[in-house]
């Protein structure tokens, strides 16, 4: 294993650890930028969708994976972002303003829902955010004048400086750029005092407080940031689906987002992206093998959601680190090859916590 030689504390603050990983990420980015030149429209479109879900996954990861707050209402943030962007575009606001505006307005809603739920955690918080989600869904449906009601409306093609961002390629590049920006900002947050405060709240509220962390303010900010990022994903999602209707932002979508962060691996941005990839690729995989499944399994109506549910349960039971946990172990295995010892990856039983606020 090669460990970079450290000569100063500043070195630990760089995002890429060592020249190897810097090159790897640069290559990855170049490949991503070149993919539309090679792949067909269908695949480019699907990858664009994957990026959008990865953005939303990063948004939820900051809240659930790093701050320890579960949200079953993030589909509503996606919806607010999508509608805000589409409605502003329809009123002639340029895309470069409507998309950030969608993020900002959603962030505002995030803080709004964050404040009343400050004293809640776990199941109570999940239910409160679920309720928020269904309220937003109802508003989108009933506010005909603005949202087009149940029928929804078609989303305009955005343009930047006169260039129309059309088709799968437009969504692909827009989503890729936003994803890179969002990951960069998230990494910055995580190496700053705010990110550490979030982690502190996740692991022990009582001592976070004693370290001088304002629980209410930090949780509200976490909600705001998570919602803002999800709102950006929503704004892009509007262009991905091209027609907005309120029933696209229901509880099932929220559960998909939660599944992304759990399957990907809580507490890891890599995990959010792995999770999104898994979430978007599994339906394709099912579609491919559907007709060959025995006993008419392929014709079962609820096959896809049940499979997600099953996988979610299995991951929580056997690999709490999610896909990212596997990835880390795999990397450690090859780095130490052939000296790998199994216990090196064994999880330690976490110690009991007894001193609680309530």
């Amino acid at each position: 294993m090669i460990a970079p030689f450290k000569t100063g504390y500043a070195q630990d603050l760089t995002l890429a650890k060592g020249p190897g990983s810097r090159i790897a990420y640069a290559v990855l980015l170049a490949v991503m930028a070149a993919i539309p030149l090679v792949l067909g429209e269908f695949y480019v479109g699907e990858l664009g969708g994957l990026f959008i879900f990865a953005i939303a996954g990063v948004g939820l990861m900051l809240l659930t994976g790093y701050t320890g707050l579960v949200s079953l209402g993030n589909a509503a943030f996606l919806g607010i972002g999508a509608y805000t962007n589409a409605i502003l575009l329809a009123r002639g606001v340029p895309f470069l303003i409507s998309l950030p505006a969608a993020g900002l307005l959603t962030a505002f809603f995030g803080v709004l829902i964050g404040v009343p739920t400050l004293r809640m955690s776990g199941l109570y918080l999940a239910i409160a955010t679920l309720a928020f989600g269904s309220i937003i869904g109802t508003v989108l449906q009933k506010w005909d004048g603005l949202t087009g009601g149940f029928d929804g409306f078609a989303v305009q093609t955005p343009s930047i400086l006169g260039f129309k961002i059309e088709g799968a390629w437009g969504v692909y590049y827009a989503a890729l750029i936003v994803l890179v920006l969002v990951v960069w900002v998230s990494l910055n947050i995580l190496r700053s005092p705010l990110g550490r405060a979030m982690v502190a709240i996740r692991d022990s509220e009582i001592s976070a407080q004693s370290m001088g962390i304002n629980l209410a303010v930090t949780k509200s900010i976490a909600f705001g940031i998570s919602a803002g990022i999800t709102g950006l994903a929503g704004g892009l999602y509007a262009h991905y689906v091209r027609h907005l209707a309120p029933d696209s932002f229901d509880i099932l979508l929220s559960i998909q987002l939660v599944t992304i962060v759990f399957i990907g691996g809580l507490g890891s941005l890599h995990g959010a992206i792995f999770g999104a990839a898994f979430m978007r690729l599994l339906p394709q995989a099912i579609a491919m093998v559907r007709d060959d499944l025995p006993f008419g399994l392929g014709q079962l109506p609820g096959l896809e959601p049940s499979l997600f549910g099953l996988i979610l349960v299995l991951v929580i039971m056997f690999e709490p680190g999610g896909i990212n946990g596997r990835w880390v172990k795999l990397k450690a295995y090859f780095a130490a090859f052939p000296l790998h010892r199994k216990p090196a990856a064994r999880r330690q039983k976490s110690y009991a916590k007894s001193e609680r606020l309530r």
Partner: protein
Amino acid sequence: MSIFAAQDIAMNFGGIRAVEGVSFTVEPGEVFSIIGPNGAGKTTIFNMISRIYTPSAGKLIFAGEDITSIPPHQIANRGIARTFQNIELFANATLLQNLLIGRHCHSQVGLLAQFGFLPSVRRAEIAHREKAEEVIEFLGLQRYRDQLIANLPYGVRKVVELGRALCIEPKLLLLDEPSSGLNVEETEEMGYWIEDIKQDLGVTIIMVEHDMKLVHAVSDRVMALASGRILALGTSAEVQNDPEVIRAYIGGAPV
């Protein structure tokens, strides 16, 4: 002038009177120990000082300021740090991250600056890192620096919690049973650190402790508590020989 004073503080939980009419003062630079059987109300006093509980009656004065009703997250930047009886570290973060969280009360970079990790944030981070490294060196934690807390042995975690409290650069340090769960050697080591913290860093310490050997070794004064009330207050020898204290301990933990 005393650095800390509890004036007639009381704490009720429903019908339970966990602490009642307790008054004491702590002088700058001293180690003030609180002893007493389980359930005596020792941790409750700490929770009142760190404002996790609001006293049902009485006042808390720190450095001349009434802190009875300031919010709990402002206790650290007043200069009061604490450890917990059952270790409350951030288990899924590294040792270094835990220490850096201890620096939180000293950080004042803006939100947007953090989003972009601007040079001001970078400079502040390096300064915090230097302070955290001083603490790592002071407590000899170098080889655990980048390990997750969840993977560290119990004895090391106790020391990390002490280190995290030191990162606050406190004037007053509250230690809740620093030796609990430690073996004899580790307890002895903890005693040396407490003395170092007192002598080298000049930090005033209030300590809740069961191990009478440790109490005797480091304390300037001792307060014995039972059922939420003060039984005796004085030097370690005076308190240990107090007839009331001896009576309270019969059937309880040995003195």
